[in-house]
């Protein structure tokens, strides 16, 4: 027993030491667990960790609660990574944020922040999928370990990918075929594009992910390992029967565990997702027709304004630019955060392939075609990254007897996950952003307090309930949801005092940033009266008036 303990201690020392200085690659689940553990050990007053649930693959869904004292009573931001299993950067950004924030918890401003504000950090919502990055054969994967019948033929996981060229990566295969829809990209013939028949172009290649048609149904790799995608399984805009979506919305343990926690966390006013959607570089735009139907598809105008305000701050702090437009998937988490959870929901992938100008010394020309692969290859060359592309090489493929089949192309993961050495900088900027966002939180104050004597023993009390923060006390979309609390205002009286006009207890609906609402009472009696106002997303304020 003791030996084991010592061994663990040794291991922990090793782990802590290595994470602190010299992590070389994205985090396996084991590494992530260690990073979580070391934070709790290093900052026991400020961090609690918990495994929300275990996936079907037996992996923990970690949650960190960061803040001092009664964290559940303070306004909070939920930070969520790993919503897309291919996006390892999201995991790194979430756990990296926690580490960076706590590393500066000795600084006054951060110390004060953690006394009045809470962060809930969920570093990896897709641990079954992200582990594929570290597998013997590297392959992009989004699904958890739920065994699904993606092609609905009655068999489970019977047609996955194969590493045909044995390079340890699942890339692509192209088949010379007169019915193929793809042609070589003239900008960069290493990449293929769909031939545009309306311009009289003819295709030359069939392009498929590397693998065999194991179940001989004519489709390749359509039912392999990897069940349900966290980011397709949320209830907003859920698409039933789509591959990876789940039999119904929120069917998976990962989604349920997170949603169960969040719905009971009434103090959360904003969700920040590190995932595919980006409404931080470019905020959502209000669309009146999108809120005209029962099922709304646009942010409300006041919420869109809050998004614009936050986006401006994001761009200023992170100095990121040229973000590509991303279409949110059906059942996507960050959209759920706004439309179904009713919170301000922000999302960013954190990194995308930067635009680079043609380098004349390499005889590069301006691209004619839009092609993410070609853009990546040009950027990679400018950075001296050379090991992320496999040249096309002919193989013999049993499903295409007598045809020319070549395997090669761009490596998995590289379009959305930058080289690891860039991660620290990305984490730093996004930590600054998350701290700034907390500074914009809704915050309650009672101002312009006035007492007027109306008659002997009868006093009129007037005050303004003010939101001195930048963000609304809760969203417009959350106005009618009982999962968001209103501000409760209470006049506390003694036995000789009565409220003659006005409500002794009342709730107040949302107040926008820097806006206020006036309340007034006629109170009979003498002496002191206290008035309390507060909600979990705004904090509390109490004042005393003398009648």
């Amino acid at each position, binding site marked *: 027993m003791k030996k084991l303990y010592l061994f663990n201690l040794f291991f922990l020392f090793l782990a802590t030491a290595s994470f602190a200085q010299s992590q070389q690659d994205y985090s396996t689940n084991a590494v992530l667990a260690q990073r979580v553990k070391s934070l709790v050990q290093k900052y026991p007053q400020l961090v609690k960790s918990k495994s929300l649930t275990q996936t079907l693959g037996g992996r923990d869904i970690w949650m960190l609660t960061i803040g001092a004292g009664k964290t559940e009573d303070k306004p909070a931001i939920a930070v969520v990574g790993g919503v897309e299993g291919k996006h390892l950067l999201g995991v790194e950004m979430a756990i990296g944020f926690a580490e960076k924030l706590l590393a500066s918890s000795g600084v006054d401003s951060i110390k004060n922040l953690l006394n009045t504000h809470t962060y809930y950090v969920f570093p990896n919502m897709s641990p079954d999928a992200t582990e594929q990055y570290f597998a013997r054969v590297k392959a992009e994967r989004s699904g958890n370990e739920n065994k699904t019948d993606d092609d*609905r033929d009655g068999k489970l996981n019977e047609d996955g990918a194969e590493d045909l060229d044995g390079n340890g990566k699942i890339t692509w295969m192209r088949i010379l075929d007169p019915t193929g829809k793809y042609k070589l990209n003239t900008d960069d013939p290493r990449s293929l594009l769909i031939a545009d028949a309306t311009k009289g172009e003819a295709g030359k290649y069939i392009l498929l992910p590397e693998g065999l048609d194991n179940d001989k149904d004519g489709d390749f790799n359509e039912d392999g390992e990897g069940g349900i995608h966290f980011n397709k399984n949320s209830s907003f805009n859920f698409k*039933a*029967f789509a591959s990876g979506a789940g039999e119904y919305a929120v069917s998976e343990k990962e989604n349920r565990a997170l949603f169960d926690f969040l719905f009971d966390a009434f103090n959360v006013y904003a969700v920040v997702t590190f995932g595919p959607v980006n409404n931080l570089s470019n905020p959502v735009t209000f669309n009146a027709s999108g809120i005209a139907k029962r099922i709304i598809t646009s942010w409300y105008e006041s919420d869109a304004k809050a998004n614009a305000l936050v986006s401006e701050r994001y761009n200023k702090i992170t100095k990121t630019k040229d973000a590509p437009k991303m279409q949110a998937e059906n059942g996507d988490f960050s959209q759920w955060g706004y439309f179904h959870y009713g919170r301000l929901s922000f999302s960013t992938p954190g990194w995308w392939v930067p635009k680079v100008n043609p380098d004349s010394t390499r005889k590069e020309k301006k691209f004619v075609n839009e092609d993410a692969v070609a853009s990546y290859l040009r950027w990679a060359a400018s950075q001296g990254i050379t090991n992320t592309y496999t040249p096309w090489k002919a193989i013999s493929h049993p499903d295409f007897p007598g045809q020319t089949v070549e395997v090669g192309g761009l490596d998995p993961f590289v379009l959305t996950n930058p080289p690891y050495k860039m991660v620290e900088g990305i984490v730093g900027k996004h930590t600054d952003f998350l701290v700034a966002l907390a500074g914009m939180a809704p915050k309650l104050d009672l101002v312009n307090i006035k007492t007027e004597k109306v008659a002997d023993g009868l006093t009129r009390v007037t005050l303004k309930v003010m939101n001195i923060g930048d963000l609304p006390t809760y969203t417009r979309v959350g106005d009618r949801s009982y999962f968001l609390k209103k501000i409760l205002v209470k006049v506390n009286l003694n036995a000789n005092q009565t409220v003659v006009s006005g409500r*002794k*207890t009342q709730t107040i609906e949302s107040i926008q940033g820097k806006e206020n609402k006036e309340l007034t009472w006629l109170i009979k009696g003498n002496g002191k009266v206290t008035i309390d106002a507060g909600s979990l997303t705004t904090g509390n304020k109490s004042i005393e008036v003398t009648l």
Partner: protein
Amino acid sequence: MNIKHTILLAVLFFYAGIVNAQKPENVLAAVGTPPNPKVQVSWNRYNDYAAITDICKKLAAAHPNLVKLEAMGKSFQGKDLWVMTISDTKVGNTDKKPAMYIDGNIHSNEIQGSEFALYTAWYLVEMYASGNKAIQSLLAEKTFYIAPTINPDARDHFLHQANTPNSPRTGLIPIDNDRDGITNEDGFDDLDGDGHIVMMRRKNVNGRYKVDPTDNRRMIMVGGEEKGEYELLGSEGIDNDGDGFVNEDGEGAYDPNRDWGWNWQPNYIQSGAYKYPFSIPENRAIVDFVMKHPNIAAAQSYHNNGGMILRGPGALEDLDTYNAQDVSVYDALGKKGEEMLPGYRYLVVYKDLYSVFGGELDWFYGGRGIYTFSNELWTGYSMYNKANGEDSQSQLYTFDKDLLMKDAFIDWHPFKHPTYGEIEIGGFKKTYTRLHPGFLLESDAHRNMAFSVYHAYNTPKLSVGEIEVISIGGGLTQVTAIVNNERMIPTHSSQDVKNNIETPDLISLTGGMVVAGMMVNNRDLGLTTEQKGDPANIKVNNIAGNGFVTVRWLVKGGTKFTVNVSSKKGGIATKSN
């Protein structure tokens, strides 16, 4: 055995003698009713969870070959959610027979669904035991999964606590309805402690109500030029939390029938929705059960009231989900239901009732392709067997007077209310207006049971018809087989086919080496579609109701062939030439 026990036993036997006063030899069986049931149940009253559990256990104990009792899961408060699997276990594999799922009481105040479901279970097994051929053959072919109450926590609340006919509709997970940070702090209050929540009225010269001159229990609104004498103050209660609202945050409230995973919407769009699809533990247990029983081809979920046989879509936005082919099956079943259930109308939820998201019948059909009805039990038609008076208030009073001996009404009586002062309390009991009076309960339970039997009977019944074997030369034999569906419901609803919900039916040939397999589209003209892979097992997307498919194989060797059919919702069939 000690002497006390002996005496106790003697007393028990004595009473047993009294209870069994109507011995089999002394009675003449009324047609259509089990003459001498092993389990005696009174079908003119309502049962709490303990009583339901008791009936289920007795049925399982008395009919071990017909009833298997199990829990689908637990309720929020930890009660077992019982489901009875009812089938003739000596014939075939219970979980492979085409099945019907029946539940009741999803809304906690709509309690008679449980009695109707229990009656169905009881009737099936007792009629089987009494030798009824129709039920015996039904239970040989089909399976029933019957869950009497899927909301047992709040059912017991309705039965044992003071309530109105409408409360609680929800389950008992606490909800902060007024969003002040406190849950369930301002519900009804049984002011006079009589066990009923009824109405409060107060004399007021400015009130807009007066006593009905034809029945002094009833309050009616005065006309435009008339002066009233009373105001109505709502259901019994006080402002417990002092926020200026009365009874605004009681038990629950969410709606378990807005929780299902088909086009689910959150509570700001669909009031009553909880956190996400199947976030209510009772419903999650059911969905897990249904997913494990792909043989369920038909379903019924009992509600009250209004005499309706409801089908989806529940929401206007889902109109396209239901296509003409499936609607024609629904229509045939529903119209038969209208004949069997006097006063009931066959209706579509979104247009005839209201447009709602997340209902149970929508998930069963939309998510699983199961033909599902929700019957709204009890109609005012049954009061005088007359149409047009169903919804009238006055009929409630006359019926209570004429046939219920005024048992349904708590007479107005004075009470001193802490806020309102001198008031009067009175009104209909929770057991009236939405629930059957005792003497009509068994009769309507029987009719609804018969409708479910009809529904279940019409789930697919597959059989292999003609098997034609022809030698076509070159050592090849052509085997052509016809597979029939002898009932109204197809093996796959068109919703199912459209979305590949359930795997295809498999028609397999053994007895030779199959070299090719094909669907025969037109046998006379020789039009076929070949299935290139796995030709011995032909996949068929659907076998239509009262329809058939023709399949063909080319085989090397063999003369004796067997055709096996296997369908998730249609069961299995086999035949040799």
